[in-house]
């Protein structure tokens, strides 16, 4: 699934990485716990999370996660957007709950890691 499809399905707003709307992801993982995200060994995973702080971006940077969507209307700070841009991470936000965000993407074929 491409970033532009995610935006359409979730009525999401793109915060950075808008020049890569055709970037494709196949797998997603949802968690507010960065401890868990850091244990993943897959690459090219979409991170769906309700945790919006600097460590969310750092965790993605270390885990080679290139795409994050903040659910339940969590807002990314200017500092977070700046760090994501530096690390070539695409950031989006949407107003749906974590459950609904996952459900909509799962129904459209985004696969779980396990």
């Amino acid at each position, binding site marked *: 699934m491409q970033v532009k499809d995610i935006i359409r399905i979730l009525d999401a707003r793109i915060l950075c990485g808008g020049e890569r709307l055709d970037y494709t992801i196949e797998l997603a993982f949802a968690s*507010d*716990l*960065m*401890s*868990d995200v*850091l*244990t993943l060994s897959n*690459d090219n995973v979409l991170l769906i999370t309700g*945790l919006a*702080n*600097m*460590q*969310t971006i*750092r*965790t993605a*940077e*270390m*885990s*080679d996660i290139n795409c994050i969507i903040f659910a339940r209307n969590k807002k990314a700070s200017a*500092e977070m957007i700046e760090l994501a841009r530096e*690390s070539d991470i695409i950031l989006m936000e949407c107003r749906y709950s974590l459950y609904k965000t996952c459900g909509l993407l799962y129904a459209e074929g985004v696969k779980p890691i396990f």
Partner: protein
Amino acid sequence: MGEKIADQYSVTGGDFSRAGYASSQIKKSLKKLGVDMAIIKRTVVATYEGEVNIVAHAWSGKIVFAVDDEKIRIVLEDEGPGIEDIEQAMEEGFSTATSEIREMGFGAGMGLPNMKKNADHLHVESEVGKGTRVEITMHLN
């Protein structure tokens, strides 16, 4: 490769907004050296877990990063409360993290086991009331 690097970063306990800065710089250095991406990921995930542990559990610390032809070596040394029972701390799920740390997205007791999983070699030593020293070794060949 042939090139050798030795860098040092300081880490401040409690400063979550900056946690990960050292790991990020180390990632950039390893990329520049052309190290295999899979090795970079394992190295920086382990380093970042250690850096967050200093921020979450200790008062202050430093991270020393060195690369030669054969290996990457990262030493995370802190001044802090130390770890009473290292074997117990290495168990998945063991954590003394406060609710403040949990709100930051950490404190599941997964860090040390994850460092062990990602590092080729992990050595932890600690003295209660003084501090902790963690050494990560990654083989390049």
